[in-house]
């Protein structure tokens, strides 16, 4: 048999499949299979994201450390020392760094997912790929950046922490918080990535919203300050409904050992016990489950909107 006959036989035996996978409400499984088939490409795209960010720079990936370190120094000096917040917050540097890295991961996933389809418009218009790959690739590169920062954080905790690290169940809380940040940001990012193709204003709104929400989570100030101001009122509940806030709090509760013991400032002032919201572990678990469940409708919205991407770009 010639090559031609072999091909003819193979093609004749292959069933016809409908192109473009018309939107079906329960088509989520197909999409996952499609993405799984393109996993190698996904990893290459993640590498491309990471490499191209530090293109041509001598220090390369090391730069992804300097930004949070610079931020850390500013907050440590300006807010901690000059404004005196660190007097009520033990191990202030570690505290701030936990919040910065977690928020950084969350906001990077949301922010760069939003523009991911637009910035890959060349590919979207010219090649058929499961389009979820583009937000997923920026999520991958955000995770990579965060991983480096967490390594630094763990070193800092091991060397600088004034209270010995407590390997208790709190570490589970940190893992839950991290997962919550990733999953919820992915849900938001997927939807915004698709909507931004049709309404370009979204990316600007997201930029501003992330800037505002940064201050709506206990990153540079501890939750104790919030509780002192709001005294557990309805506003505090609203504050705690924010999944990003829950994620940051869980990370702090899990990794900031000094926050779990009473802190007696030198100089004889009254000892301070950090206030933590009640049932933090339960709230994180519930919101994490809800976020996981929301992944499906988010993917469906994305799949519904992606049909016209190529012509809207």
């Amino acid at each position, binding site marked *: 048999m010639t090559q031609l006959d072999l091909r003819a036989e193979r093609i004749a035996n292959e069933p*016809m499949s409908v192109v473009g996978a018309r939107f079906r409400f329960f088509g989520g499984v197909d999409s996952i299979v499609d993405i799984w088939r*393109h996993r*190698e*490409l996904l990893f290459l795209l993640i590498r491309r994201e990471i490499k191209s960010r530090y293109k041509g720079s001598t220090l390369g990936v090391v730069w992804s450390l300097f930004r949070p370190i610079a931020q850390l120094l500013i907050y440590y000096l300006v807010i901690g020392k000059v404004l005196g917040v660190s007097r009520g917050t033990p191990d202030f540097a570690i505290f701030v760094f936990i919040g910065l890295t977690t928020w950084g991961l969350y906001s990077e996933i949301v922010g760069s997912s939003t523009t991911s389809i637009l910035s890959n418009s060349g590919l979207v218009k*010219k090649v058929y790929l499961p389009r979820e790959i583009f937000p997923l690739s920026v999520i991958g590169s955000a995770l990579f950046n965060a991983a480096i920062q967490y390594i630094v954080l763990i070193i800092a905790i091991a060397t600088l922490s004034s209270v010995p690290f407590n390997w208790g169940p709190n570490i589970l809380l940190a893992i839950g918080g991290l997962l919550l940040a990733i999953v919820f940001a992915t849900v938001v990012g997927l939807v915004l990535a698709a909507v931004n193709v049709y309404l370009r204003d979204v990316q600007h709104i997201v930029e501003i919203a992330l800037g505002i929400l940064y201050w709506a989570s206990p990153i540079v100030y501890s939750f104790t300050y919030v509780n002192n101001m709001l005294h557990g009122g309805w506003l505090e509940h609203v504050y705690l409904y924010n999944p990003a806030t829950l994620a940051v709090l869980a990370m702090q509760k899990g990794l900031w050992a000094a926050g779990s013991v009473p802190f007696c400032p030198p100089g004889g002032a009254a000892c301070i016990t950090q206030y933590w919201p009640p049932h933090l572990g339960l709230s994180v678990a519930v919101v994490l489950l809800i976020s996981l469940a929301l992944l499906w409708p988010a993917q469906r919205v994305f799949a519904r909107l992606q049909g016209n991407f190529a012509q809207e770009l």
Partner: protein
Amino acid sequence: MSSTMPSIVRVHGVSKRFVMHKDKSLKERFLNFRQARRHTSDFYALRDIDLDIALGSTVGLVGHNGSGKSTLLKVIGGIIEPTVGTVERRGRLAALLELGAGFHPDLTGRENVYLNAAILGLTRRETDRYFDDIVEFSGIEPFIDTQVKFYSSGMYVRLAFAVAVHVDPDLLLVDEVLAVGDEPFQRKCMEKIAQFQAEGRTIVLVSHSAEQVGSLCDRVVVLDGGVVQHDGDPGDGIRILRAGYEAERERAAHLAEQRGLSRAYDIESFDTEAEVGADGTALVRARIGVTIHEPSHDWGIGMEIENTLGLQLYAMTTFDAPALPNTPGYHEVTVEFPDVRLGPGTYLINVGVGNSSGVNFDRRAPGGSFVIPGKDYGNGILRLTPQISAK
């Protein structure tokens, strides 16, 4: 052959409607919410297309700008979803709608090969296997570890093309990207395409070059305004496409006339005939009747002879010949081509009237045709009389 081949693509009743938004920003949409309809307009890029493409065929999609041919290619490729209808497909697809889509300027050639191959559907292991072939085909070995932003545009497309042809597709979709690079590389591309055809791969290509379509395709689909105008023989397809261009030009000329811009020179009549002698050589005679309304400083006649697939065989002008009469009124000019040795077939003659500064007054394409009958040992455009002897 193609009748026994299984089909690889089936297009059923596909229409594609585009909605043109005239406003994009939130403010504009909000302000115009009430009259949203007024700010959108629909247009159909494709209307009720049915196609069945058999494995191993090479199909050319041709048409004027905006006829919907690229849209149809994108619908087949799954890049654009049809508004109505479905497309069914099987086998492995590679879409070459733009060379180097997905090349990242800051990555090296090597990294881009892996990335681009993955985009076109190759696994890492397959890319490892083809990598040396790809680099050799592209001919840019010394630069493979250089960032592609430092590549010349020729190197860039060569690498991209090399990746694309090594993807091992059953169905290759090509949009105007054949014939890139210098002449030796172009020859390599065409050889690769011929090899693809021999291996029974299916190629669907969009092209503006009638010559390319004529030489590569065994089936031509002519689209006009999103509707299939012709589907089948390439020669007929190209003729219909040309006739369409011609009709458009005529319409433009007619409009110009209505606006009072009368043509200075008019081709009134054009006849061609061929007298074929016993030895197979032909005498081709063309008679052109021209009416001169306003004489220009000079004028001349241009003619082209083409085969039905649009391959130009000969072109001439009368500017170097003795001057033609240049007074208002009707003139008849005869051009004779003695001793024409062409293979059997139909040939077209295009004719035009213009002056030496490049102004074109009138044109007819095709103006006429002639037929060379007969049989030959071989076949081709030239009539040769091979003498065969053996010892």
